[in-house]
């Protein structure tokens, strides 16, 4: 692979790397026919981001077609190449990115003013494919706003805040901080903002949903959007279904996919490890969801049937990909992982790992991608048991 980024695009690339660093510790690099994909995922697989830079973003973009090359490296190393953004803007004229497969090195060469040449040879590891499956076009609620609107909204929440809940109706969007049920009422501070539909460039709320997701990872995208001035599109669906935020222009596309908590508060409280069947689902959906979940479980060949742990508590629709795993525990903001944080029961862990593969693969019986997924998930067993934040 050999590509050249010139002028202001170097800073855009740098900003994309910096915003990916807010998601995970590793940068996945995959030169594709349709552009260079830079991806990152957090350790609990509850947040995923991908920037795709079209060939036109580069002044030169050449890859060995049919190569299917992908690698990953510590994102800090790439950040060190683009350390000072202000200096980048002022002094860097162009940036060459070259892949040396023999030496397992990715070389970034920055041609700067005054005849200064900075060369960074970064070592990488081969990596598995990292691709989240999401279909934002099928989402019920779509919004688009200038980044300033979201930045101004988010600024009201303390940096330490983990989760926000976004609720939408026909004309309004509410953003409030999410407070755990267990938190003491006297110590909790609730902040809620209401945004009217006319503050958005586009506001289409077909389903009045309320989703809760992690704010920290969103901030990464906002920093990027604000600096590039690109409007942010937000795709919301039911709780449990990941929220997708995108920035697009003619030469790049950035997608941040964040898992959401699936259940409403009453369910969450009672959900506990191993007690899937015991968890009382929302009364109105109880019977249906139970059946749905069970049927879904039987359908997918991946999951060995949650029979030993019981069907996961309800999701509101038949969308198998995103629903099921999220419902398992009350910290279910993570689509796949959620149970890890609360559960130590091994039995419970297994199905969840399989669920992760649903997120990243397809629900259809084994494809080449899928064959690697379960392996990956099993490999990651140990690390996924770590607490998120």
């Amino acid at each position, binding site marked *: 692979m050999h590509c050249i980024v010139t002028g202001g695009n170097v800073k855009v690339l740098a900003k994309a790397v910096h915003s990916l660093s807010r998601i995970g510790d590793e940068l996945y690099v995959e030169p594709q026919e349709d552009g260079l994909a830079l991806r990152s995922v957090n350790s609990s697989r509850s947040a995923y981001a991908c920037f795709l830079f079209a060939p036109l973003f580069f002044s030169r973009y050449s890859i060995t077609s049919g190569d299917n090359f992908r690698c990953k490296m510590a994102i800090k190393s790439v950040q060190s190449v683009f350390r000072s953004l202000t200096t980048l803007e002022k002094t860097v004229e162009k940036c060459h990115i070259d892949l040396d497969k023999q030496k397992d090195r990715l070389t970034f060469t920055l041609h700067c003013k*005054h005849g*200064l*040449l*900075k*060369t960074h040879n970064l070592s990488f590891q081969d990596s598995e494919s990292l691709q989240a499956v999401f279909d934002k076009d099928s989402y019920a609620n779509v919004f688009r706003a200038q980044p300033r609107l979201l930045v101004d909204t988010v600024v009201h929440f303390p940096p330490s805040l983990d989760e926000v809940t976004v609720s939408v109706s026909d004309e309004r969007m509410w953003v409030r901080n999410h407070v755990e049920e267990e938190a003491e009422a006297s110590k909790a501070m609730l902040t809620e903002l209401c945004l009217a539909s006319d503050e958005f460039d586009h506001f289409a709320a077909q389903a009045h949903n309320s989703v809760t997701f992690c704010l920290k990872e969103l901030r990464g995208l906002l920093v990027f959007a604000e600096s590039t001035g690109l409007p942010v599109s937000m795709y919301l669906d039911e709780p449990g279904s990941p929220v997708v935020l995108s920035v697009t222009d003619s030469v790049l596309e950035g997608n941040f996919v964040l898992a959401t908590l699936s259940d409403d508060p009453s369910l969450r409280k009672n959900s506990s490890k191993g007690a899937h069947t015991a968890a009382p689902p929302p009364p109105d959906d109880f019977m249906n969801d139970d059946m749905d979940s069970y049927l879904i479980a039987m359908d997918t060949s991946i999951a060995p049937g949650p029979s030993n742990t019981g069907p996961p508590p309800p999701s509101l629709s038949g969308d198998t990909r995103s629903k099921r795993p999220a419902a398992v525990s009350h910290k279910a903001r993570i689509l796949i992982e959620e149970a890890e944080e609360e559960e130590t029961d091994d039995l419970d862990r297994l199905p969840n790992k399989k669920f992760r593969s649903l997120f990243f693969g397809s629900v259809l019986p084994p494809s080449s991608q899928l064959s690697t997924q379960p392996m990956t998930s099993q490999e990651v067993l140990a690390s996924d048991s770590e607490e998120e934040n």
Partner: protein
Amino acid sequence: MPLSTQSQGDDEQYVLVANLDNARNLSNILKAITFKDHAIFTATTNGLKVTVEDSKCLQANAFIQAEIFQEFTIREDLVAFQINLTVLLDCLNIFGGTTTPGVSTALRMCYRGYGYPLTLFLEEGGVVTVCKINTQEPEEPIDFEFCSTNVTNKVILQSESLKEAFSELDMTSEVLQITMSPSQPYFRLSTFGNAGNAHYDYSKDSDMMELFKCTETQTNRYKMSLLKPSTKALALSCKVSVRTDNRGFLSLQYLVRNDDGQICFVEYYCCPDEEVEEN
């Protein structure tokens, strides 16, 4: 003014008396070499030289010529003592180091000779402080035997571009490798860190390169921990000269302008890291 009238009569007792209207002209330059507690002060009729050393491999010298001082009187050919540099700097900044324009700390430095403390009279806004700092037997500064005749490669760069490189250096690298050559890459700084290696190349045609005189290709490695303190001197300077001799010893000379626009010099000498063979 109160300082000079006070000690007129005492002057004969001192082997060294140095006056500065602005103590910052001394303290700023000393900060560029404060990586160890102790420093050797050597005074001659030319002025003051302050030396700091580290593990017998690194030496930093700050030169403050006699002309910088409003008064510089020395009654012996050579006056030398060792002193705690950190304490000295604390005293020089005793009034808090205010940067209000027009307000400065005046300094009168007096030394009676061997065994006596260094006496500092500091005045600001009519308030006078007297500090007496104990001195020790001066150690002989290392003679790196670095002489111009043995210099193989020399470049003079504007500090601005080198500052950028030094601020970005990969600190996970144990060494800083310097390559100087009459051909490509001309002048290269390299690091070998956890993530991979990085090279900063300065072309000989760069407008930042004021002088380029390289006679042979040389690559030398120096311990990063030893060279890191030189960044302070680099930050203060406007130009830096980088020289290596036939043994691979490194000499960095920094041209520093003080508050009044006067020129002082700071130099660093460093031994090459022995473990690596040159290629």
